């Protein structure tokens, strides 16, 4: 009993690795077709680098290690920040667009253990156009569309739009955080109480309460958002989203997109468009992204940047059950009588060159063990494939005549 459970554990482990690999393969192929190159940053980074980027990552959340000289290092706590840092360091102001993707682990300190998440994502630097925003969103869309999941939805919002409303209230920082919390949880009850208590003007109250309901098909949301706009910046945000919607149409991506103007990503560094991807059977966003021009500014160089990242484990959780078994060929097992050892190795090498999964059995000659087996005997070769059994005079005749 215990034995078979152990076996299940190992099988599940192998299966997870295979699923992970297939997701990475899909992503790599896709990113390649959009002209993105892979980039990697150091696993250990100086702690100081993150203490200056205030508010981005909680210091308690980082996994710290003491280096040999007593310097405090952290295990890569984020992907976007180090990639942005690396790129801004080596790219001048006026250089052309840079497109990168990454497949990296991110480490966070949880209550009593360290969490490691494998993240995949893309970053596009050096362009702040709507076209670039849409390109990254389209890439996110296509990634989810290419995975074997039953259903996906991408919510698109605008951090600048919400920011403008917060600024209109003239509330202090801590109160704004609370307001943001109510907006993103679509909590109209407490939102209303809050607005009355803080004596926010009637017209502004009305707008804020309606933001919560700006959710649904893009065209519909844009139309309603226009009636709520309070200033030029908000108008621009709406124009921007409308243009993105038009461009998405050119990508052929109009299904599965929802606009949610109450959307707020918990990472504070997004400045304009933001989006989150959801897949069936996973209770949290599997993908998050947006434009984060303010982050690059904080790091040192003002370079426009847009990107997204997603957690591979969450994607694995959402893969369809029937897709779980990846098309894997069954092992071919070669058996041989001792005198034919040279030919056995020769055959093994030739089959592996043809990308076959081949094992060689040195111990026993009990061919019935495997569904696909090749038995090198004194005078001839016997090939077993399921119930089929064929005999060949030598290796060459087998290789030319038989398709395994």
């Amino acid at each position, binding site marked *: 009993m215990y034995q078979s459970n152990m076996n299940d554990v190992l099988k599940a482990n192998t299966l997870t690795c295979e699923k992970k690999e297939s997701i990475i393969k899909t992503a790599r192929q896709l990113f390649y077709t959009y002209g993105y190159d892979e980039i990697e940053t150091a696993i250990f980074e100086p702690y100081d680098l993150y203490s200056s980027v205030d508010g981005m990552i909680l210091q308690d959340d980082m996994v710290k290690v003491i280096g040999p000289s007593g310097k405090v290092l952290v295990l890569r706590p984020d992907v976007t920040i180090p990639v942005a840092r690396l790129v801004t360091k080596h790219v001048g102001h006026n250089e052309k667009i840079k497109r990168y993707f990454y497949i990296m682990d991110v480490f966070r300190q949880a209550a009593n253990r360290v969490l490691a998440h494998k993240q995949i994502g893309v970053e596009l630097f050096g362009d702040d156009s709507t076209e670039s925003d849409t390109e990254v969103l389209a890439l996110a869309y296509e990634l989810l569309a290419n995975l074997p999941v039953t*259903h*996906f*939805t991408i*919510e698109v919002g605008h951090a600048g739009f919400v920011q403008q409303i917060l600024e209109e209230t003239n509330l202090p920082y801590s109160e704004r955080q609370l307001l943001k919390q109510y907006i993103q*949880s*679509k*909590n*109209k*009850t*407490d939102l209303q109480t809050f607005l009355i208590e803080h004596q926010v003007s009637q017209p502004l109250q009305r707008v804020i309460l309606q933001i919560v309901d700006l959710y*649904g098909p893009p065209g519909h949301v844009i139309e309603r958002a226009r009636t709520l706009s309070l200033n030029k910046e908000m108008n621009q945000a709406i124009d921007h989203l409308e243009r993105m919607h038009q461009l998405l149409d050119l990508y052929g991506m109009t299904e599965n997109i*929802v606009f949610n103007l109450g959307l707020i990503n*918990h990472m504070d560094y997004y400045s304009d468009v933001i989006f989150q991807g*959801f*897949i*069936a*059977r*996973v*209770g*949290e*966003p599997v993908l998050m992204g947006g434009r984060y021009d303010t982050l690059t500014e904080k790091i040192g160089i003002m370079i426009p940047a847009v990107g997204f990242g997603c957690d591979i484990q969450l994607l694995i959780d959402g893969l369809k059950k029937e897709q779980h078994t990846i098309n894997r060929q069954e092992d071919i097992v070669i058996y041989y009588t001792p005198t034919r050892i040279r030919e056995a190795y020769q055959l093994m090498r030739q089959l592996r060159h043809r990308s076959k999964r081949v094992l060689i059995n040195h111990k026993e000659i009990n061919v019935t063990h495997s569904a696909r087996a090749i038995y090198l005997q004194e005078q001839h070769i016997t090939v077993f494939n399921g119930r089929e059994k064929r005999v060949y005079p030598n290796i060459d005749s087998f290789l030319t005549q038989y398709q395994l």
Partner: protein
Amino acid sequence: MLTIALAKGRTAKDSIALLEQAGIRFNNFHEESRKLIFYDQTKQVKMLFVKAVDVPTYVEQGAADLGIVGKDNILESNGHFYELLDLKFGQCKMVVAGLKEKPLRTTSHLTIASKYPVIAEKYFLEKDIQIETIKLNGSVELAPLIGLSDVIVDIVETGRTLRENGLVIFDEIEAISTRLIVNKASFALKHDLMTPFINQIKTVLEVKQ
């Protein structure tokens, strides 16, 4: 199908009644049942009958698409989900209470007994008062009586338990009522099912008012 997590305990009857008014009936449901999962007549809604404190967890994790639970448990969970409707029942207050003869000292270190350590810590942190919290799971009123804590943070409906134990309210932290919460992914992915469901409940609430 939609899955809804319902809090056992003081708000269960009202929750079931509200769903019934919205046209969602669970025939085989009665509170004493040992069953944990119930289906409505049309088999469109699956109901999980769970401990109130666990409802936010079920919803945040996506094990349930929706949840009906008190604001007290929502605040305590700090979870990420939508909090769409105030269902207006199960109303009570989250308060700081203690012995009349031992008024709240705001200058020194306090020991708080509570079922809600997160809420308690947040409240006193904002007031810059250092506290030590003792997590209790029931009969919290006992703690100040036997000197286990200086004060308690708990919900109060009528105030009878406090009075009978010689405790008084020092401060009101927040008004509590029952809320409808929704998993964010479900909201995005099952919007077509979710919208009519929420609208039905909204209508019932409007009629009640």
